[in-house]
């Protein structure tokens, strides 16, 4: 098992390196620079000399190759650089935002799992039945809504009309602040999980080994318990892992809408202000997060179904 984990960790390294290189190159050709974004409010005045000095200070006057070498050199010592905007280490800024983003990502996945998986399971027990039809139609509808629109509607309904929950912000990190953004973010993975679970359960129900088990005289319930659950679980787990990627991606929109202090809103702010070191740091950390989650998923899957480890 340890060897398996180790191998997975090793696989992550080249991906991270490739991501680092890719985003470095992408953002080296982005139009505009931090210094000149500073005047866009129409109120500040920065003259050319000041802009030049700022760019020199940030090393932007160096040739691309030199900058890349410096960037990689720093990365090797796990240094993500210094923010143009705040003049603070990027790690510090990311550290402040990591926990709220993880809270949001995990809460929305929990929401998706707790509702989506049983829903898909129920739907599969009687394909074509009422439960199946209703839940699948709802699932597809949930997949078809623009996220920010859904978020606004939730705010409107649960905060303004019903007054049950706060409409925005992080508060003191209380659960009530977490609910609306998690739902807005969790609806899409919920729909996908429900569909995946349903498909997985259906497929396995018809699979040979389940039929064999039935033929052997195992009771229906035991069949469900022993084979179905384990195999379906692996598929569902894998889906959860992959969905983390899109959840973190969509969090960019939801965090902005709900004024949630996570990595997503830091990323959007930093892209618009051309605070490139922070952008690079955020993307790297998000990718790392995704890889770690998926590694955990794989390990879990391997524990549940030992055959996986050798494939």
């Amino acid at each position, binding site marked *: 098992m340890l060897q398996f984990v180790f191998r997975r960790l090793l696989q992550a390294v080249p991906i991270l390196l490739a991501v680092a290189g890719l985003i470095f190159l992408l953002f080296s050709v982005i139009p505009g620079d931090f210094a000149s974004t500073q005047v866009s409010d129409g109120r500040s005045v920065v*003259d050319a000399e000041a802009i030049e000095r700022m760019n020199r200070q940030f090393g932007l006057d160096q040739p691309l190759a030199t900058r890349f070498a410096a960037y990689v050199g720093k990365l090797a010592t796990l240094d993500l650089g210094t923010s143009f905007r705040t003049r603070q280490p990027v790690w510090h800024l990311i550290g402040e935002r990591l926990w709220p983003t993880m809270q949001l990502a995990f809460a929305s996945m929990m929401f998706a799992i707790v509702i989506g998986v049983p829903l898909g399971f129920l739907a599969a027990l009687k394909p074509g039945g009422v439960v199946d039809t209703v839940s699948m139609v709802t699932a597809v509808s949930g997949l078809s809504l623009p996220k920010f629109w859904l978020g606004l509607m939730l705010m409107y309904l649960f905060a*303004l009309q019903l007054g049950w929950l*706060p409409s925005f912000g992080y508060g003191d990190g209380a659960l009530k602040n977490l609910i609306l953004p998690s739902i807005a973010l969790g609806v899409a993975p919920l729909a996908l999980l429900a569909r995946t679970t349903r498909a997985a359960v259906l497929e396995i129900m018809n699979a040979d080994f389940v039929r064999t088990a039935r033929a052997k005289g195992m009771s229906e319930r035991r069949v469900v318990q022993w084979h179905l659950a384990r195999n379906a679980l692996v598929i569902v787990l894998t889906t959860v892992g992959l969905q983390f990627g899109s959840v973190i991606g969509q969090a960019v929109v939801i965090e902005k809408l709900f004024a949630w202090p996570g990595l997503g809103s830091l990323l959007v702010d930093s892209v618009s202000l051309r605070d490139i070191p922070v952008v690079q740091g955020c993307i790297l950390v998000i990718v790392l997060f995704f890889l770690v989650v998926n590694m955990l998923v794989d390990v879990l899957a391997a524990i549940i179904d030992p055959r996986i480890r050798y494939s």
Partner: protein
Amino acid sequence: MLNKWFLTTALTLAAFTVQAQEQPRRGGTIRFTAPYATSFTSNDSHVSPQIQDEIYTYALHRSLYRWDAVNNKPEPELATSVTKSADGLTYTFKLRDDALFHNGRKMTADDIIWSYTRIMDGSKSYPGARHIRRIKGAVEVEKGQAKEIAGLKKIDDQTLEITLVEKADPGFFLYYGQTAIYPAKEAQAEGFFNKPIGLGPFKFVEHVPGSRMVLERWEKYFKAGKPYADKVVISPMGEAASRDIAFRNKEIDVSILGPTQYVAYKADANLSKGIFEVAEVFTRNMGMNPSFKPFADKRVRQAINHAIDAELIIKRLVRDKAYRATGWLPLSSPAYDKEMKPYAFDPEKAKKLLTEAGYPDGFEFEWTATPNESWGVPIVEAVIPMLAKVGVKVKIKPIEGSALGGTVQKGDFQAYIWSNTSGPDPLTILKCFHSATPQSACNYTSYKNPEVDKLIDEAGNTDDPAKRLDLLKKANAIVYDDAPVWFFNYNKAVMAYQPWLKGLQPNSTELALQQYDELWVDASSPAAK
């Protein structure tokens, strides 16, 4: 004169009577919002040029001056008296001896000198440098040629002498939050910015980046009895739709409104009672690049001004959340000229001017615009059919909000639409139309007119305030006639506030910047406790 004096007195008295009825209440939490796009930069107010960060700075820090919103001029804040030398270049400040930092230490001249010197650290490019640069010897520090700013002289602990490079009222540039006074010794300590201290009415409690900053009352604030509130919570909320819902849900005490919400709030029986309007010092305009051939001709630029029905756009699209521009300097500017008339909406005349300029069939240009609701793509979309009627075709070139400044500075445009500050100091503002000012600074349309140069230079050299205003009015009128831009409107800033929030000030430099020591909440606030 007498009449005017009488009127002012009567108004002041009236204001006082209203105030007298309502005794400010102590306690409670002010739940403020910072309505611009991004989160707060950090806990270091010197680092950011953005209004967003100044919003918290006003609670935490003090600068040498403050903007007196009621009288629309800068006032000494950390000094009890200011004397100007005969040559008009040296100012002597008698500093307050009751201004205490949040650790209880008394502010001295050293703190001011240290703070200004820090801002001039050339390796850090602090945005406040553009203000301090007007003090003699500051540039030398910035370039690393000197360690100390020559124009800053400590006479004793509570007396400071500031020498400027040119005649100017230091109040107009030393009131910005970017020039806040830090405690010299403490600020150099490791970890100072984790829990910064200042001279402001509120002490730092916590900052959850991207979510909120919490501050609590500073008991030893130098203004007796102030501040009133126990706490201030400031949440950066750039998303207007979310802010709208939070405000209606009574989760926040103020919100800055855009045109569409302005109409909605005015139409609502309850919300309409809490609307605060101020003519801000921002001029919305379409800058035209003279290096694009048609725009080099003054007649073409005037034709553009005649061809657009700005009145209609202001009324229908901007929902009267603006005042028609009649020149560059806005309504609240001391050099605003009431006699100036807006360009008449006259497509016939526009057509004639275009024909004279050699464009009887019009031309096509590319118009750079951001998504901004009040001065971006939506406005351009409404203008397109109007210009089409005189044969001028428009291609929209959409760009991100934050990229506009850089694009314009580089001259990489045929036309752009923007909202530029046009106050509070008319001299500083009109210098942007001086030919010596580069496009990269603020002469964005590369404007050049020797006559205007002369008037601005004269205005800068005169000691007579009335004469200065007169000269600036003249320069403003010439700029208006030359039409380097399409003069669209002056912003009417609108703030919605909850009925329990009192003491808001009509700050024309930026309505979202409020002095928190004057704000208080009555017992009906959900956060009154």
